[in-house]
Each structure stands twice: as C-alpha cells, then as structure tokens.
C-alpha cells in the first residue's frame, strides 16, 4: 500500500464531490429545491443517486469481510438489501410519490391527520438515521487508519465535516449530482480491481483447493435456518422504512416514473452486489489469514497488493480507497439530507437557514456516537438498523398505504412497542451471550418484533373506531389512482 496514492485518491474524491456539490448550489435557490430537487430529476439520474446512497460501507467493505469470516451466509445480506427494493417497488414506490409529501413524518401526518403521530414518527426517523450514520463513520475511521498513519478518529471527523458542509451548502439538488456520481465511482472502484484480480488469478495457475477455501460447513447449507429467515425478513421489510430511501421517491415527476426509477435501482444495486460478492470470493482465496474479527472488514483494501505487487496494485488500492470514501460520503449525506428535512420542519420553521442548521446538528450527533463507541462488524451494524426500521416505520407505511382502518393511535402504539421490543432485544443480546434458544431470539429479533408491531398496530386501530381519519378514503384514492396526465407531473393538490 502506498499512503501517497491513497490520500491523493481521497483528496481527489473530496475535490470532485465539492465541485459537484457547489455546482449544484447555483441551481438550488428555493426551499423546494433544497428539499426535493424540485421533483425534476430524471429516472436514470435519480436511480443512480438512490443506488449511490443506498450502497454503504456495509456492502463496500463489510461484505467481503463477513464472507471471509463466516462463509457463504454473508451473501444473504446483499440479497436481502436488493430484494428490499423489490418490496419498495411493489408496495410503496408509486403511492408514496403520489402522496406529495416531503418526508415520512409529512406522509404520516397527512394520512393520519395527527400531529402527535407525526412527532413520534420524526423521533423514530431520527433514531434510524443516526444509527445508520454511525457505522459509516466507523468505516471511514477504519479505512483511513489502514491506508495512512492517522489517529482513528480522523476518518470519521473528515467524513462528518464534508457531509455537513455539502448538505448545508447545497441541499438535495447538489446531493443528487454527488450521489449519482458516487454510485458509478463505487461500481468502478470494485469492478476494475475485480477484473484485474480475476485475470491475475486465472493466469497464475489454480493451486487452490476448492474444498479448503470454500468448505461445505461454511457454505450456503451451513447457516442456521431461524437466524437466516429472521435476518431476511428484516432486510426485506427494513428498506421500506429507511428515511433516506423514501425521500428520493418524492423527486420523481409522477407515480409511473417512481416505479421506473425503482426498477433501474434494482438493476444498479444488483450489479454492484454481484461485483462486491466477487471481491468476497476472491478474498477467501487470497487472504484467508485476515479472517480475524476487526481486521476482516479491511480485506478489500488489502487484496490488490497481495495479488499484484508494485505500482499496479498500489493504484488499484487507491481506487478502492476512493470508492470506500464515496460509500461513506454518499450514505451519510443522503441520511443527513432526510434527517435535516425532518428536523428543520418539525423543530424550526422549515426555512432554508433552519435546514442548514439542522444539517450540522444531524451530523454532530452521530459523530459523537461514533467517537464514543467501538466499531463492531460493519455489516451487522447496518443490519441492526434494518431490524429497527422494519419493526417501527415499515408496518406504519405499509398499512398507511393499503389499509384504510389505520388510525393515529394505532400507529403511535405500534411504533412505540416496536422500538421498545428492538431495544430490549439489543440489551438482551448483550446480557445473554450464549447461543441458546433465548439468545438466538435476541440475536435476530425481527421474526418476532415485526409481527408484534403489526399486531399492535392493527388491534389498537381496530379498537379505535372513532379514530379513522375523516378523509382516509379520499387519501387512499389519491395514493393509488394514476396521476392525471401520464408522463407529466400532476399538480399537487392539498398536502
């Protein structure tokens, strides 16, 4: 590894990000620009941006580390992340676009006609966003620590400062340009090294024993059925409840284009995960000695130099470093945009200045959390956020879009129970460290927290007969009936 190349790559990424960000500033003048890029972002561009912010440190660095550590069961994570978008497409993409709301709390307030439900949703959105940013900052600290002799906090602070600066300066329009660019950078940063490595490995004579590198007990059939099933449930449903995913659908011109965008996202995300999985397979062949907790997440950075010593390997490593920082930046800034939108509308008046202030606040909190905690496995930290989202916001959104009997009390009760259940499972997993039946339930709680939340939501809503929103039927009709003119944006009626 060559620190000069690596730091130059990070520097170049920062410069390009800043230039794209500030080029967007000239375009973003009004409040509406700041929040949703005035809804004029084209499908491919928007899909690249969505994929750019969705692909986080968890899959860029973490997937290869997890597959190296625990085997093929790690592949379930990207499968779940990608399939989550299929559920977004099937259940919420077009209806949420037609709702005309800026943020998830906006949608909940409009659908349930309740300020209280909005406040609770805002709190849940903030918790999810902060929990999601922390592993990105941990990843940044880890990656920068590997490539250069800097203290561990430097990477986290660097990313946090950049994110807060770009978001506060440009808002969503700038972020769309930055993130679309960062998707293609991330794909290139893994695809080019993967091709080089595969060519080098296939030319170097196959002296690896498949049975030793890919042992059957670490293979697909070795995973625990409950753990895998529960995890997949969380990943599938969790995507619907992620704050930075949904805010993007408000930038599509209409419901049909929101669907088109989501299909392109499935293609882009799947392509990236296929490349990322290739790096994971290469890691098992080339670097079995790095299969140590704490070290494994850095394996992708080590691969090029192992196979291709010299300048080629160093340049490829620098490319991967740039891609990794793109991953940290893109996900964190997407989250900060959506969180700042929520905070500025709920706490302050919703003006441009309050959006800027909120962006700084929303970056400072997770930075403090990242500096105070020790990094765990990147993939599992991100997986935890999906469990929380799937147990709180996802049922509210799904039932809000499809079930007219949902009431504000039901939504609040469901989110509260889901959040408490997730917190209890997290604590329980710390206390019960063994792998007994109870420990397993705490380790992957989604299989019981999601049904629990949904049951509470439905029971409380059904009991709350007078609480059905006055305009529920009209609102549902608006969500599901096609926009007035196909291909053009429908005029926004009362929000």
């Amino acid at each position, binding site marked *: 590894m060559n620190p000069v190349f690596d730091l130059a790559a990070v520097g170049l990424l920062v410069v390009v990000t800043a230039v794209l960000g500030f080029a967007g500033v000239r375009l973003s003048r009004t409040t509406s620009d700041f929040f949703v890029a005035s809804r004029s972002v084209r499908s491919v561009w928007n899909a690249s941006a969505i994929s750019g912010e969705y692909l986080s440190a968890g899959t860029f660095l973490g997937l290869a580390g997890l597959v190296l550590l625990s085997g093929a069961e790690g592949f379930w994570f990207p499968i779940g992340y990608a399939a989550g978008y299929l559920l977004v*497409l*099937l259940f919420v993409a077009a209806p949420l676009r037609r709702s005309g709301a800026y943020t998830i709390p906006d949608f909940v307030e409009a659908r349930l006609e309740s300020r209280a439900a909005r406040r609770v949703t805002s709190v849940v959105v903030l918790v999810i966003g902060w929990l999601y940013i922390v592993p990105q900052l941990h990843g940044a600290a880890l990656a920068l620590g590997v490539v250069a002799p800097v203290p561990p906090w430097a990477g986290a602070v660097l990313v946090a400062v950049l994110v807060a600066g770009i978001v506060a300066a440009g808002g969503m329009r700038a972020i769309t340009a930055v993130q679309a660019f960062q998707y293609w950078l991330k794909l290139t940063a893994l695809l080019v090294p993967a091709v080089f490595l595969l060519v080098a490995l296939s030319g170097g004579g196959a002296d690896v024993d498949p049975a030793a590198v890919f042992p059957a007990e670490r*293979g697909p059939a070795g995973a625990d059925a409950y753990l895998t099933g529960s995890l997949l449930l969380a990943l599938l449903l969790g995507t619907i409840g992620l704050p930075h995913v949904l805010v993007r659908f408000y930038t599509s011109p209409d419901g049909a284009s929101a*669907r088109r965008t*989501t299909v392109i996202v499935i293609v882009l995300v799947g392509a990236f995960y*296929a490349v990322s999985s290739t790096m994971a*397979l290469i890691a098992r062949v080339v670097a079995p000695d790095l299969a140590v907790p704490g070290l494994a997440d850095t394996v992708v950075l080590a691969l090029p130099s192992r196979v291709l010593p010299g300048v080629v390997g160093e340049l490829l490593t620098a490319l991967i470093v740039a891609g990794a920082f793109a991953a940290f930046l893109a996900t964190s800034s997407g989250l900060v945009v959506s969180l700042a939108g929520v905070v500025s509308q709920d706490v302050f008046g919703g003006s441009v200045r309050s959006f800027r202030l909120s962006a700084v606040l929303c970056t400072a909190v997770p930075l403090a959390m990242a500096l105070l905690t020790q990094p765990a496995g990147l993939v599992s930290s991100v997986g935890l956020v999906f469990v929380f989202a799937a147990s709180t916001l996802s049922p509210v959104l799904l039932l809000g879009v499809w079930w007219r009997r949902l009431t504000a009390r039901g939504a609040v009760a469901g989110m509260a129970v889901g959040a408490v259940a997730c917190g209890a499972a997290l604590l329980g997993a710390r206390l019960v460290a063994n792998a007994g039946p109870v420990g397993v339930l705490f380790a992957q709680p989604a299989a019981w927290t999601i049904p629990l939340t949904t049951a509470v939501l439905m029971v409380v809503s059904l009991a709350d007969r007078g609480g059905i929103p006055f305009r529920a039927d009209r609102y*549902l009709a608006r969500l599901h*009936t096609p926009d007035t003119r196909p291909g053009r944006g429908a005029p926004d009626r009362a929000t």
Partner: protein
Amino acid sequence: MPRVRVTASDARRGPRTATRGFALPGQTPDDAETVFSRGLVRTQLRLALGCVAAFLAVAATLAGVVFALPVLGDPVVFGVPASWLLHAYGFYPLMLVFALVYVRAAARNERRYRALADPEESA
C-alpha cells in the same frame, strides 16, 4: 371476489359512464368513482401480494437448490463450488424479472381504471 371483476371488466363501461352525471364539481366523489378507486386499490394490492408470494416461492426453490448442491457433489466451476456461485449471483436476476412483470401489470391495472373512470379521455 366479484367486485373486482366489475372494475376490470370492459362490459360495464356504458352504464358506469351514465352514472357519472350525479357528481357535482367540488363535492365528494360519487358512488361509481369510489367503487372504481376502491377496486383499483384492491386489484393493485392483490397484484403486489401475488408478486411477493411468487417471488418468495421461486427464491425459496433456488435456495433449496443451493442447499441441496453440496449433498449432490457440488461441481466446481472456475475453482469455486457451484453452490457458492449460485448463492452469490443467482438471486439478483430473479428480482429484476419480478420487478419488470409487476411494473407492466400495475400500469395495465391503471390503464383499465382510467378507461373506466374517464372513458372520453382515454378512448
């Protein structure tokens, strides 16, 4: 469920158009329109649930194949056991197929709704 068939059927177009005259501008939607949009919601929900069920069934079958391969003497392709390769790459094309099928079907449902609700415009 008979109601949904009413929504999707072209046979009822004529009579339904006649009832639209009861709605006054700016007032609550008339009965026909409510029935149409509720029918659309139900059709779209059934389509989405059907797609999820079909996707899960196909994905579970693929997972079954992935689990069964090691027992059946996993063939090694490019130095990697086929079960690992299938697990790493096999699921993404499935998602794309189901996504495309859904988008086409959902758009078709909306075209039918539009034909019912606004026969003049979409004719």
